[in-house]
């Protein structure tokens, strides 16, 4: 069983389109994250949700909107896609509360905007 799973793994789309990436974790964790890895492999935190509540929102354009229907899911919706949105998006999860530490990552979703 995959602990953190993302769909789709690959996504090719045109500028201006709207797309979503889904993430699910079966680890029973309370906290989930979205990271963006650019073409230079730099990983940057975008969002974090703890038990469906947004707790981290870095300086990300408003075109990006995370949605957490329950604590096992954190989806990323992107409106009006731009060339610069091309990247690999990683979902991750971790336990929360008093625990701090390791994140468990999904396999990534490679988004290509043409």
């Amino acid at each position, binding site marked *: 069983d995959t602990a953190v799973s993302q769909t789709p793994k690959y996504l090719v789309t045109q500028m201006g389109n709207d797309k979503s990436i889904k993430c699910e974790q079966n680890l029973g964790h309370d*906290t989930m*994250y979205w*990271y963006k890895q650019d073409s*230079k*492999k*730099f*990983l*940057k*935190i975008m969002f*974090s949700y*703890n038990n469906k509540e947004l*707790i*981290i929102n870095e300086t990300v354009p408003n075109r990006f909107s995370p949605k957490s229907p329950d604590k096992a899911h954190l989806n990323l919706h992107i409106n009006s896609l731009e060339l610069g949105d091309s990247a690999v998006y*990683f979902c991750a999860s971790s336990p*929360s*509360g*008093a*625990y*701090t*530490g*390791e*994140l468990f*990552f*999904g*396999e*990534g979703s490679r988004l290509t905007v043409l």
Partner: protein
Amino acid sequence: AQSVSQHNHHVILSEAASLELGCNYSYGGTVNLFWYVQYPGQHLQLLLKYFSGDPLVKGIKGFEAEFIKSKFSFNLRKPSVQWSDTAEYFCAVQANQAGTALIFGKGTTLSVSS
């Protein structure tokens, strides 16, 4: 806010050579420190982590790292690399507070020739 600096962008070694990858962080409080590895086409996996205690931590696949608080450093080492160690290596720091995200360095590409 935390930040992480990895000094080596690309390291090229022959098999059996020793490895040391530099990592320095910036943060005034208590931190947790991590090294992650990303093999070609795969997701990030945890190599090792430091929370407290013995500053020399051992991870998987023969890797170790030493936390030197006075230097704000957490360098990764391996006495003898193998071709299969070819990968991207990421150092990460996390403020020791519940629910905080990992902040990653820009990564080091390790290429090992057989």
